[in-house]
């Protein structure tokens, strides 16, 4: 039988290809689940201000980042907390009831991570309780990650899919990207 011989140049390129595919294998690393958190952004709650106006020289606020943005484990933990902390009691799995829905595009106090964080920590008028001192910051950030997923603000890959309750809308993963905007209007101006 005739033996097929590759030229030295072809051999080199074959070895190179093998090495490059080895590099690709390294990219199969899965998402990290960090259990033992050093509490991220421990003072975040105090950094968030309710108004951009301030006395004295204006200071530009550094934007706060949710350390769990686009982290599937954090979103699923947030979903668990959403039920266990009884968020569903008023927001009803995101569909709204006693509290406003979290799956639409009208978000009264803003949809940026720091807005949601301060809504949970500080509470809001007309019924939103304050969780200050009741949950560690990292769990609040996990809740933030899930609430944003409810509004379609997380990547589809990290949104949770499985639900045990009755569906009020298509599953979180099937939802389109959300475009929530703050819609706070002073009550008196509504009628005029």
């Amino acid at each position, binding site marked *: 039988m005739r033996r097929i011989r590759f030229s030295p140049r072809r051999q080199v390129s074959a070895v190179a290809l093998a090495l490059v595919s080895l590099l690709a294998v390294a990219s199969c690393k899965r998402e990290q*689940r960090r*259990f*033992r*958190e050093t*509490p991220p952004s421990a003072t975040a709650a105090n950094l968030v201000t309710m108004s951009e106006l301030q006395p004295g020289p204006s200071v530009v606020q550094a934007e706060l980042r949710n350390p769990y943005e686009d982290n599937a484990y954090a979103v699923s933990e947030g979903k*668990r907390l959403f039920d*266990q*902390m009884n968020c569903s009691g008023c927001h009803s799995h995101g569909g709204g009831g006693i509290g406003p829905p979290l799956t639409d595009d009208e978000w009264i106090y803003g949809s940026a991570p720091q807005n949601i964080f301060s809504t949970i920590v500080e509470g809001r008028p007309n019924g939103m309780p304050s969780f200050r*001192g*009741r*949950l*560690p910051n*990292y*769990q609040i950030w996990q809740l933030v990650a899930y609430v944003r997923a409810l509004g379609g603000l997380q990547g589809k890959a990290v949104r949770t899919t499985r639900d*045990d309750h009755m569906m009020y809308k298509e599953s979180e993963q099937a939802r389109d990207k959300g475009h929530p905007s703050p819609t706070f209007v002073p009550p008196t101006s509504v009628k005029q």
Partner: protein
Amino acid sequence: MSSSQLSKSLGPTLSIVAAGCSGFQSALDPKGPRAEAVAKLHWSLVTVATVVYIIVISALLYALWRANRRQNPGNADVHHETPEQAETMKRGVIVAVAVTVVVMFAFVFASVSTGSADDRLQGAKPLRIDVVGHQWWWEVKYPDPDPHNNANTANEIHVPVGRSVLIKMTSQDVIHSFWAPNIAGKKDLIPGHETRTWFRADTAGVYRGQCAEFCGHQHAKMAFYIVAEPRVEFESWLEKQRGEAEKPTDSLRLTGERIFLTGPCAVCHTISGTGAGGTTGPDLTHLASRRTIAAGTLPNNTGNLAGWILDPQGIKPGAKMPPTRLEPQELQALLAYLENLK
């Protein structure tokens, strides 16, 4: 390996295997009728399988010896079977198949009758206990017609010796499996569905059980204890569990109670008689009366409790309890309060 070497190394191995058959958490040391049925089934299967194994291996060795003999040119006469020999072989195969079918059906029958052994316990007015599986602990409830008398505990199931017990089970999150091998076989806990199991403990003692269905990171540290005790002791234990928590009297414990109620603890844990009514974590009303903390992970003592409160993720990574930041004085006060919850 010579035969003496073999027996030397086999001796200790066998004694270790035999030691595994008795004691703490073993299906081969039954303490109740259901576990006895399982152990009986086990030994009958092992015995029959051993006999079958010896017969099959002997037949195989015989066949090898016979083939070897045929290949030997000196034995020309055994090259071809006579019709009588072929007939005998055929009959042998038919008998072997028939015996196999009979044995297999006998196994099916034995297995099914062992599985339904718990039905026989149903008649005897059982003590009802509710068990809810959580990642990664067991909620144990003793319901009473008068809701005021409900008792709620965790990871420790007290039962009276000699009385049949009906356990109604469900799960909060994923599928778990309830398994105390000394007492009974496994039964799955399924979210949104109620399953039942019956058992009876005939000897007083503490029997360890654990989750037998992989349920996440800390599946291995999801244990519980069945404490079987004489009826009088059981009744007094239950009476105590029904009561409210011990009220703190000195200032240290009062501080501890305040920390518990105003901090993150009360969001997830219940202490009956106080404002703390969280249902996410185990009920702590009588925490100090339990043998272990964190579902059988650690013995219940001051040091372990302190470590668990401050850094549960170091002890049981992935557990749903978050770390708590406390000043040393606050921690001491909290520990003093919790250790008084007898």
